[in-house]
């Protein structure tokens, strides 16, 4: 049973009540909200997610709830609640959707420390994983979305998950967060993409989310072998450039960007070494999406045999 099989009224009631348990790769997340305006975006972005068992123990329970009017008399506000406790400051209610995505990200970034958690976008083709790592604004989500539209499977646009000792990337497909110009860029590059409502006025500007292809969600339990590590850098007007990066340098850069590399101690070091070991590592610089794809084409097939599932979703 997936979210889209729930009648809208049921979904709204369950979100308002105990929340809905969603299976996302290895994690079980329980989502809830009593904000009616979030029901449709959730139904849209999470349509293909399988529902878990209501009684099962979720990895986290994330909600967005309105702040009582007397606490915030100037404008309608909402706040994020994790496992029954308020976390973070309240925010304008108009920001509820990106804040909901953000609080789920926060849980995913801080909770499952039984895994090494890289701050990366990950896509897969033919069982091989491509890890995109870079500062916000480097273009990793945009490039990941473009690759997904060309037949790659989405693992995650924010976190690369590896069980220590396994050498395997695990999928955690969630909506791809796009901001500002990237939203229209992906709309024209991937006309069939399902994109949620745009929210202006966030800290990052305008934000919108792309629904992950049904195939990526359905196959979230299939891991991948890390094969490429790519450090993208978007620079307006740059001539495209592909540079090999040594494995030692890649390890340090991935470690610096990771959420819990230092927390895991020697297990983190060994796990990251194992990831880097089988990978070719590149830094790519580009000024446009087509240049970025050309850079990737120099070491990997950008358009793997298109599967029907990806085209249709």
């Amino acid at each position: 049973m997936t979210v889209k099989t729930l009648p809208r009224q049921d979904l709204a009631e369950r979100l308002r009540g105990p929340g809905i348990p969603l299976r996302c790769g290895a994690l079980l997340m329980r989502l809830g909200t009593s904000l009616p305006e979030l029901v449709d975006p959730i139904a849209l972005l999470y349509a293909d997610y399988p529902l878990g068992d209501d009684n099962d123990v979720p990895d986290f329970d994330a909600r967005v709830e309105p702040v009582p009017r007397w606490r915030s008399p100037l404008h309608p506000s909402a706040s994020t609640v994790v496992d029954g406790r308020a976390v973070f400051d309240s925010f304008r209610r108009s920001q509820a959707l990106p804040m909901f995505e953000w609080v789920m990200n926060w849980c995913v970034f801080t909770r499952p420390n039984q895994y090494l958690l890289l701050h990366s976008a990950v896509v897969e083709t033919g069982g091989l994983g491509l890890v995109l790592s870079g500062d916000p604004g480097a273009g990793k989500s945009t490039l990941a979305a473009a690759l997904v539209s060309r037949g790659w499977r989405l693992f995650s646009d924010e976190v690369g998950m590896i069980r220590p000792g396994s050498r395997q990337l695990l999928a955690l497909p969630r909506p791809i967060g796009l901001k500002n110009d990237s939203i229209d860029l992906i709309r024209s590059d991937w006309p069939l993409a399902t994109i949620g409502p745009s929210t202006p006025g966030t800290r990052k500007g305008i934000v919108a989310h792309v629904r992950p292809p049904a195939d990526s969600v359905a196959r979230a339990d299939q891991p991948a072998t890390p094969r490429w590590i790519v450090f993208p850098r978007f620079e307006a007007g740059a001539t495209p450039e592909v540079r090999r990066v040594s494995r030692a340098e890649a390890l340090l850069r991935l470690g610096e960007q990771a959420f819990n590399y230092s927390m895991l101690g020697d297990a983190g070091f060994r796990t990251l070494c194992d990831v880097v070991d089988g990978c070719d590592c590149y830094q790519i610089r580009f000024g446009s999406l087509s240049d970025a794809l050309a850079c990737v084409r120099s070491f990997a097939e950008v358009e793997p045999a298109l599967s029907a599932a990806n085209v249709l979703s």
Partner: protein
Amino acid sequence: MGSSPNWRLTPGSIFHWREWDHEFVVYHENSGDTHRLNAIGAAALRRLTAGPAQSEDLAREIADELSRPPLDVAQAIDELIARLHDIGLIEPAGDSQDPASPGSR
């Protein structure tokens, strides 16, 4: 105090190593820091895990071992020693009585 030229690893230090194409990464378990070292740096740190050494001797041995110009190596070693001392991986030997017990895995 006065800096002694004889250096040793901070007692109890545990290192984990990995090498790719003559480049080394080493994880220092105690501090939780990961370092990237070239061949000279790796040889020097390996030598120090075997026991205390003076930087001049270190430079001479490593220049020999890697067949590099002694002067270049000596300068690299001095910089490395200063850096390792700054981050607490090594300390001047001889001002504390307990013997260094470095481990390496």
